[in-house]
């Protein structure tokens, strides 16, 4: 059963990132120190789970190393030129002072478990050193580095340094919003797996005891529940919906509460628990009506009725699927 698109929050224009936390500052200094060492090839990996944080790292590197011509390349898995080809195209005939490479995590097919592009990159490691006479920094989320280490051990072993950056809650919120874009059924299986990875790592950065983090935590859990449901991982979906619901209630987010109840209700319907489904969907309907989302209230009501029809009346023959 397909899950209909859930209400999306309006995209927010983010304020400029906050001044770096002390540990981010230490990492940034080390990164810039590496960039400004004598010219020549070197390889570095910088972990940052949030696209906005990665953008900030690059802009800060440019600001702090004004004499360094920094070029960036965002890898496209659909590009036939491959990773090195795209890096070559980005540098062209120039010799930049440094190169930031984004998107290597997208070259891993987590769904299929194979990454031929990464295999090629690993085996042609020596070519990188001869072709690129400048520092190359791969900026990637945690799961990207987790995948890269075993898939590209020769490349990994050549690193000069690694750096790790932690996001502010605004970064996390932006990442969760980005990962929640599109209905889950519009995403290819590979994309679903990647987004789930991103959200799991974002959750790892957030503090459930920090009130300012709770909304992002709830939204991440909700989306993870939707992604798990689409992957038929019902236990994981149930876990995430059950994690999101009390947080939404705690922070008084009625839209979030209704959305989770709706998703959890659909889940229960899909796994043959019509009584549970009906209860959840009716609760969702009530909230949708209370907050003025009539269309969603109608949908919830419709699904609740489907659940009702599946319920076995007392004394009747047991329901068989």
């Amino acid at each position, binding site marked *: 059963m397909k899950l209909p698109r859930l209400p999306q929050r309006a995209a927010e224009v983010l304020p400029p990132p906050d001044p770096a936390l002390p540990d981010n500052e230490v990492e940034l200094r080390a990164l810039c*120190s590496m960039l400004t060492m004598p010219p020549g090839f070197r390889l570095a990996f910088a*972990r940052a789970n949030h696209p906005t944080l990665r953008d900030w790292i690059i802009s800060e590197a440019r600001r702090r190393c004004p004499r360094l011509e920094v070029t960036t390349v965002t890898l496209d898995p659909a590009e036939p030129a491959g990773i090195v080809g795209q890096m070559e195209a980005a540098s062209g005939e120039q010799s930049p002072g440094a190169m930031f490479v984004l998107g290597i995590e997208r070259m891993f097919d987590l769904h299929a478990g194979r990454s031929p592009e990464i*295999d090629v990159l690993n085996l042609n490691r*020596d070519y990188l050193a001869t072709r690129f006479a400048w520092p190359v920094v791969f900026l990637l989320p945690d799961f990207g*580095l*987790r995948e890269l280490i*075993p898939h590209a*051990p020769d490349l990994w072993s050549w690193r000069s340094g690694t750096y790790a950056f932690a996001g502010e809650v605004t970064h996390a919120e932006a990442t969760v919003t980005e990962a929640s874009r599109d209905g889950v059924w519009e995403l290819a299986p590979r994309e679903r797996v990647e987004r789930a990875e991103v959200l799991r790592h974002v959750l790892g950065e957030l503090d459930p005891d920090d009130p300012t983090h709770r909304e992002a935590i709830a939204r991440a859990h909700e989306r993870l529940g939707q992604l798990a449901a689409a992957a038929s991982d019902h236990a994981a979906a149930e876990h995430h919906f059950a994690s999101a619901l009390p947080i939404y209630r705690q922070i008084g987010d009625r839209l979030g509460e209704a959305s989770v109840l709706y998703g959890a209700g659909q889940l229960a319907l899909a796994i043959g628990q019509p009584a549970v489904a009906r209860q959840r969907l009716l609760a969702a309907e009530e909230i949708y009506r209370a907050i003025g989302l009539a269309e969603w209230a109608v949908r919830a009501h419709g699904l609740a009725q489907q659940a009702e029809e599946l319920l076995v009346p007392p004394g009747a023959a047991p329901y068989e699927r």
Partner: protein
Amino acid sequence: MLPLRSRLYTVCDPARPIPADDDVLYVDWPAQLLATDDPKSRLANSIALGAGTAQCRFVTGHRGVGKTTELLRVKAILERGDTGRRLFAPFVSAFQWIQADDIEAKAIVFVIVRQLVTDLEGVGIGFARQRWSEFLKDLWQRLTRDIDLDKATVEAGPLSLDLVLKSSAEARREFRSLLERRLPTLYDMVNDTLQQSREELRKRGFDDIVVIVDELDKIPMAILNPDLGLTNHEQIFFHNSNILRSLGCDVVYTVPIELAYSTRRQRFQADYSAEILTVPVLPLADRAGKRNDRGHDAFLDVLRRRVEQAGGTWSDVWSDELVERLCQLSGGHFRQLFLLIRSSLERGGVPITEEALAATVRRQAIDMTLPLTEGSWALLRDVHATKRRPAEERSIFDRMLRDLYVLVYEDEAGTWYDWNPLLGEAPGQ
């Protein structure tokens, strides 16, 4: 002049093997500590003693341990004639030419021939190039006949072969198929070339030819048949051993460490009648933890030369306590040592402080443990406690060995294993 910090950073570059003619940075600790077990000497002597019989020989070792450095030294030893025979020794970096999905024995032979022809031309023996060009032209004509390529590419001729193979999976598949069919021709051509080349090389003072093929240890292991447990490593080195042995000259191949230290080692050595030589990690202690003083002296010598090359003094760069800590954290693995030094230089200046090293170690320990599962940790703790390979969990152990989570050592009692010392620095350990 650049500051000392920058100069030291440059001389500790983990990506550069030491050239064979650089005796300033190079410390021949294998000869000092291992004496007759020095893999360089054993390999060079083995080739010299095997005069008249073309043989395959094999070298393994962890990535970053210095295999390429040692093999370049073997090449220099053979070309100088230090063993009593002077040998022409083309050195093949396999993945300069091969694509990841082309890692088959016949592709390896193809790149060997390619390098051989190039190097022969370099010493003025040009007939091999002509024969090779004819062979390539024939392949090219068949390739362009069978697949669609743009006109400009076709007209560019066999010189476009690399470009076409790099960019087209279809072309690579067709090329492999063509090569398979033309293998007998390739063998005849290359062995005929070798025979003729020997005559020409003797005029130039060479007694024979040996080809050294590096980087085959990088071949990622793939399971080809889960039911049989057949891997691509076995396919290349066992099932296609006839192809690897087809050349009429001595060949040295590097071998993946997880294959070399697997239960297939005995079969491997029996099939080829050749021992797999290991370029070892520098032994700093034995399995009981007893310090190896000569290993420590060699370690200090490596560092001393780097500091001198950078134009600094020992105390400019670090304290003895910090060096002791570096020694322990490196596990005797030089690339890991240089990574720790460079990262520490990035996080502070010189002299390197304990704080900078501690921050580096923490970062490296956390990052390297990202891919580890509960099962991996259990195995690693077991290896650390017992210094032995576990009886089960072969595939996990092979990966741990390959990816430098487990390091292999040798002492008087034989082979033993330990976890990478950085693992002990991970939070919670």
